[in-house]
């Protein structure tokens, strides 16, 4: 008789490292996402009972695979029995074909699962939800909480996406070689969006914080599955470097703290080290043609390695934003470049630059802040007030209010 707590820990540990491979394998076997997840869940429940009684098997992952596969076969047999009344038996695939004991799990299956869940024919919200559910193993309730919707809404979103996969004919397979780069970018976009959902609204103790950890987990998985892809390493580097500041960005009262004002000793050194390691790999793999994730990671690395806000290498950051604007033009990048120019050349340069760019969220706030730095408090105050009317996120509103309060005292 083994201690049940140890068994539960063993099952959890095996699932943590093997779950995505198990689910992917079951998707290959059954052709169904939800059934695959259920079978893995059932196998884990069975393990709790069986391993306590008979001891932990020699190869826990293989035990879970076999058990999950047997669940799938049972399920299919039941369904075939029901289906026989409706269709000719020949039309239903025989479950014995699944049970081939020689067939182990295919190491590429988790990647196939990712490409499937992040397929561009699915709506973005569905891709994110499905990836978190199927690949990261979150419960429907956890995803619903993270995205501030009801469990029912999230359940419908997931089932609509699964239906689309089935009805539109999205297959469990790798993209054609000439589409691989784009499809990998689609997967990375889902991971980055997941990260930002958590990162941009950090509230200590809120379930959204987990999204940061989930996104990091997905980035680790991508690195494992696509070790030769420079941008995948760039993405992981970017996530690690940004996540290193996660807990320094918000004060105990929930008020956001700008990077300039953050206590750099609270940044997570381990995540910075991991981020810099990934960045080095991305640099080695992409050489002279850096992609957007690597470039953003380089910028994040400049901040992460600067001894103080004042000692930040703004010359290099402006150069990096210029490269980034070339490979991935966007008004947000223009805004960030203008801000970087302000820190390199002074507030007047930023104000001039900001006047030339498209109006995007955050532009008015940045403009107001450089007016403040330029010693033009009245104009700054008017601009902050205008920005407050357009501010959409809590963090932005609180920052602007704090600045207004500062200017009024």
């Amino acid at each position, binding site marked *: 008789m083994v201690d049940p707590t140890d068994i539960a820990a063993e099952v959890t540990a095996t699932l943590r490292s093997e779950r995505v491979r198990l689910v992917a394998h079951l998707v290959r076997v059954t052709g169904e996402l939800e059934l695959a997840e259920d079978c893995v869940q059932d196998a884990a429940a069975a393990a709790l009972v069986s391993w306590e009684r008979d001891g932990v098997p020699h190869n826990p992952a293989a035990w879970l695979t076999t058990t999950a596969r047997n669940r799938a076969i049972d399920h299919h047999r039941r369904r075939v029995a029901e*289906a026989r009344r409706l269709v000719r038996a020949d*039309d239903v695939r025989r479950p014995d074909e699944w049970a081939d004991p020689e067939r182990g799990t295919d190491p590429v299956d988790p990647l196939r699962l990712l490409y499937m869940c992040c397929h561009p024919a699915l709506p973005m919200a569905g891709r994110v939800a499905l990836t978190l559910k199927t690949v990261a193993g979150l419960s429907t309730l956890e995803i619903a909480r993270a995205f501030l919707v009801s469990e029912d809404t999230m359940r419908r979103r997931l089932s609509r996406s699964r239906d689309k996969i089935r009805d539109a*004919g999205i297959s469990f397979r790798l993209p054609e070689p000439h589409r691989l780069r784009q499809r990998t970018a689609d997967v990375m976009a889902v991971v980055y969006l997941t990260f930002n959902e958590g990162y941009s609204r950090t509230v200590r103790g809120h379930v959204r914080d987990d999204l940061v950890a989930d996104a990091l987990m997905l980035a680790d998985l991508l690195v494992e599955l696509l070790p030769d892809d420079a941008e995948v390493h760039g993405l992981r580097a970017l996530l690690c470097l940004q996540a290193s500041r996660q807990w320094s960005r918000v004060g105990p009262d929930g008020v956001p703290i700008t990077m300039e004002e953050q206590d750099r000793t609270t940044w997570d050194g381990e995540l910075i080290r991991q981020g810099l390691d990934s960045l080095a790999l991305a640099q080695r793999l992409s050489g002279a043609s850096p992609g957007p994730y690597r470039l953003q990671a380089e910028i994040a690395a400049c901040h992460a390695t600067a001894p103080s806000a004042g000692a930040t290498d703004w010359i290099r950051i402006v150069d990096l934003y210029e490269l980034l604007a070339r490979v991935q033009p966007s008004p947000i990048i223009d805004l960030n470049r203008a801000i970087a120019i302000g820190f390199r050349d002074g507030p007047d340069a930023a104000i001039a630059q900001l006047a030339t760019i498209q109006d995007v969220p955050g532009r008015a706030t940045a403009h107001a802040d450089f007016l403040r730095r330029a010693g033009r408090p009245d104009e700054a105050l008017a601009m902050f007030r205008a920005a407050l009317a357009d501010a959409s996120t809590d963090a932005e509103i609180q920052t602007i209010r704090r600045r207004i309060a500062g200017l009024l005292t």
Partner: protein
Amino acid sequence: MRYLMFVVEDPARTDEDRSAAPEVEEFFDYVRAKGGWELAARLQPVESATTVRVQAGELLVTDGPFTESKEWIHGVAIFEAFDLDDAIEIASRNPHAYLGRIELRPIHSMGGLDD
């Protein structure tokens, strides 16, 4: 799986896109070689459309298409593809993917569980 391909015009397409479009013959050579092409039809202009319905036992015939849109379907095709990625690949070689837009709709199949 079988897919229906709708082709719509998109006046917003740039000359650059238009000039990048492959020749229609090139596309037909490709689908002929690939197989699975069942039907393709170019439609008369939308001005020729007629909408028909029977309402409260009465036949109603009206002039024009049933959708209120600035984009008109001007071609349809039905073809067999391995899966959606395969269908997307086929659609992406259609010159109308450069000149307009293409909608892919899977066709319901009658049959067993595995369809």
